[in-house]
């Protein structure tokens, strides 16, 4: 088991390098000129040329990538004169935002993580709860209710659900204040209040597929021979559902949930936009609008890192949960 974990982690590290190199090269290969983006609208060709040299964009792409990695390890100084120094781990400097990219990420990540974590807990509860209920009461009203809920969640866009939430709970009824994000350490109550709507919006959308996954998974497992054998042994229905059915049915959901959660950590773009949450998704959108490559490389990389890590963790977790996956 230990060797399995080690092997999986080693593979994840390799993959991270490949992903980072790949990301860097892709963005470097874009036709837009990062040097031209460093000096706004008063850019003259000679200024652009100076900045290109100063920022190392005149170097070959592998060399640039090398410098980028160096920046992560030991920090880097950007710009003219004394310039601006970004301490390690430096993911770059944004001349559009006038800030070290690492600072931008560390500021936006907690927001996204807050959104993601709460939404994740909610949608797993809703998804698995309603999915299980639907499977156990198959064909009866709880099933129809859960399936109907999931159809609505899947067919309505996040944007619409979010706006609807704002309209109903903020503007029409005034039950909730307009969500303005506040850090959990600064004001836990405000933090919570500002996230209720985003959590529910994301949860409704994401829970939908989990309702289906859970429902279908449970129904499928219920027809498995080993469940019938469990019943034939004399196991109680409740024991059977928890110990036999749920465990087997939820296992594949662990994988999907892990990856979904990781993807969300890379930025819940639409939800963050609707609720104006200053998270990573919003940061990426800003960067796209500004053609700010320094940020885009970093957010892409961070998002990819989460996915790679989640993938490895899910695999390892799977090894613990499913004896068939373990390799001795």
């Amino acid at each position, binding site marked *: 088991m230990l060797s399995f974990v080690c092997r999986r982690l080693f593979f994840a590290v390799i993959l991270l390098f490949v992903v980072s190199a790949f990301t860097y090269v892709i963005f470097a290969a874009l036709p837009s000129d990062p040097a031209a983006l460093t000096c706004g*609208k008063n850019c003259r060709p000679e200024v652009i040329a100076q*900045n290109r040299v100063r920022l190392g964009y005149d170097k070959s792409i592998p060399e640039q990538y090398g410098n980028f990695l160096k920046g992560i390890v030991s920090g880097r100084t950007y710009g*003219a004169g*004394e310039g601006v120094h970004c301490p390690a781990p430096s993911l770059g400097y944004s001349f559009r935002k006038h800030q070290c990219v690492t600072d931008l990420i560390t500021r936006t990540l907690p927001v996204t993580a807050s959104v993601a974590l709460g939404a994740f807990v909610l949608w797993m509860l809703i998804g698995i709860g309603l999915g299980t209920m639907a499977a156990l009461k198959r064909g009866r009203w709880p099933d129809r209710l859960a399936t109907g809920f999931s159809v609505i969640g899947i067919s309505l866009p996040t944007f619409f659900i979010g*706006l609807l939430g704002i309209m109903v709970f903020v*503007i029409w009824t005034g039950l909730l204040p307009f969500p303005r994000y506040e850090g959990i350490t600064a004001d836990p109550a405000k933090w919570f209040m500002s996230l209720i709507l985003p959590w529910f919006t994301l949860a409704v959308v994401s829970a939908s597929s989990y309702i289906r996954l859970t429902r279908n998974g449970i129904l499928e497992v219920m027809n498995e021979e080993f469940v019938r054998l469990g019943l034939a042994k004399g196991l109680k229905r409740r024991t059977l559902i928890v110990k036999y059915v749920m465990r087997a049915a939820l296992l594949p959901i662990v994988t999907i949930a892990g990856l979904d959660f990781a993807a969300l950590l890379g930025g819940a773009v639409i939800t963050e*936009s609707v609720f*104006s949450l*200053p998270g990573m998704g919003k940061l990426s959108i800003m960067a796209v*609008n500004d053609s700010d490559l320094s940020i885009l490389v970093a957010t892409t990389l961070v998002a990819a890192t989460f996915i790679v890590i989640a993938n490895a963790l899910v695999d390892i977790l799977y090894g613990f949960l499913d004896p068939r996956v373990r390799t001795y």
Partner: protein
Amino acid sequence: MSHQKKLIGAFIVGALLLAACGGSSSDGGDAAVGGGLSATDEGIKDGGTLFILDHSTGATNLDPQRIYTGADLGFLGSTITRTLTSYTPIAGKKGTELIADLATDTGTPSEDVKTWNFTLRDGVTFEDGAAIVCDDIRYGVSRTFASEMTGDEGPLYAKSMLDVAGEYPGPYTATADQQAAFEKAVECSEDGKTITFHLKNPVADFNYTVALLSFAPVPKAKDTADKYTLKPVSSGPFMVQSYEEGKELVMVRNPNWNQDSDPVRKPHLDEIRWQFGLEESVIDERMIADAGDDQMTIVYGTIQPENLQTVFEDPKFADRRTDGFDGFVSYTMINIKKVPCLEVRQAFWLALDREALRTAAGGPYTGVFADSFINPLLAVDYTPGTVTEGLNVDGTPNVEAAQAKMDAAKVSCPEVHKYATEQGLRFDHGQSDLWAKLISIWIDSLGAVGIKIIDNAIEPSKYYATINQDPGDLMRAGWAADWNNASTVVPELFTKEGGFNYSQNWEDPAYAAFSEQVNLAKGETDRVKQAKLWQETNQYVLDQAWAVPGSFTKAQNLVGSRVRNAYQWLPFGWYNVGAIGLAE
């Protein structure tokens, strides 16, 4: 700025660059320049928090040297950034009158108008209590020269006007000699009270130039170069308490500002919270609902087209809605090198279906057809221009008149006629969803008189760079004045020295006379006479059809029901935010 970006995409098609030069959204204080809210202190209870809702993810800039657009200039100027001169804080035309701010008066020029002197007031301080001295202003101005750092986005007047010997790369990388040369061009008196600007050429309205925030003081010890824009040092009645991109800018009262030293600002508020990154549709819904804190709210941006009807047809919004020119004029530049034929240029103007274009862009709310390059907000300089004979005032094409011009061109300039009808004219414009629709109106309406249009959609962020290197035959652009003088319009757009002239009209034999007239206007110190000259030169451009005006664009807005004194400050085309107060 994002709103301006949107405007560009929608109507004024130009680069970021062009968008960044002047006025912004909203209402006019004068009935003549659009409906708006009245300027009054009545009913205001001092204190409270004003909220500003904004779709964009952050302030364009807080660094004074990097500010260019009207709304930003007005906002920061009225709150945290003082300049030597400023504008009268009042609605209507009087608001464009220059008054002294940090200086004791509006400046003294030398006989030849190449040297300007300003004396600083007593008791003016930064937020830390330090006195503002000449060095601070000189240092601030020097930052606009650092084009790779703090001089990357603001106006370049200091660079083009100041008589600095040799190259000066700004304070961050200058050698001692270079710095000395700069300090010779901008002199400080021994006591630090008097600042003297030495100019390359006579500039009669240089005291307007120094009202730009690029001439605002920055304490050298507190300068953080690229990062200064995140936490600038205030000289005004407010100061930045916190600023988080994508979230909020919070300004509170500056305890070291005193009313006695400031004739421009009269603050009522305790706090201003500028909230970023909101969905435009959400902003509209909140403003329409007018609940809770939203009653103490203004919007940076405009009402979404789909909500205009609701807001403008329901009388309950009468006290809260605004509708006015945003200071911009959209126009089409014509490359005189490629189209050296007046008849073809006039035919183009006559044949273009401006009404169809406006309808496609959103109808009359988006603007009125322009008859000048000088915006009506430049109240002193604007006068209705005389357009080409036969041009329909309702914006519809006059195919007959256009065809007559084309027929005449066939005789007078057959080469150009052939070029326009056979090879076709390359039309440069910014790429957008709207333009994808508009282009067919161009092609069809000009095709009616045989002019072929070759569509050349350019990615908006690269628009300026592209047409700078390779100008097309026709180029779409938008412009707004940098201050209330057409000196920032006519020379900038149509002289060879101007920053944004892509028409290459200096190739035209008619250019020499024009240039002479412009130079005359530039040096004219009598403002009324100067205005007359700008009107004449503007008319000259219309007559020569070096460019063809499109629309004076408009913007609409709502304010919260407890917001008072939100008049439009004409020089900036936005509210005098620092002067806004809240009703109980």
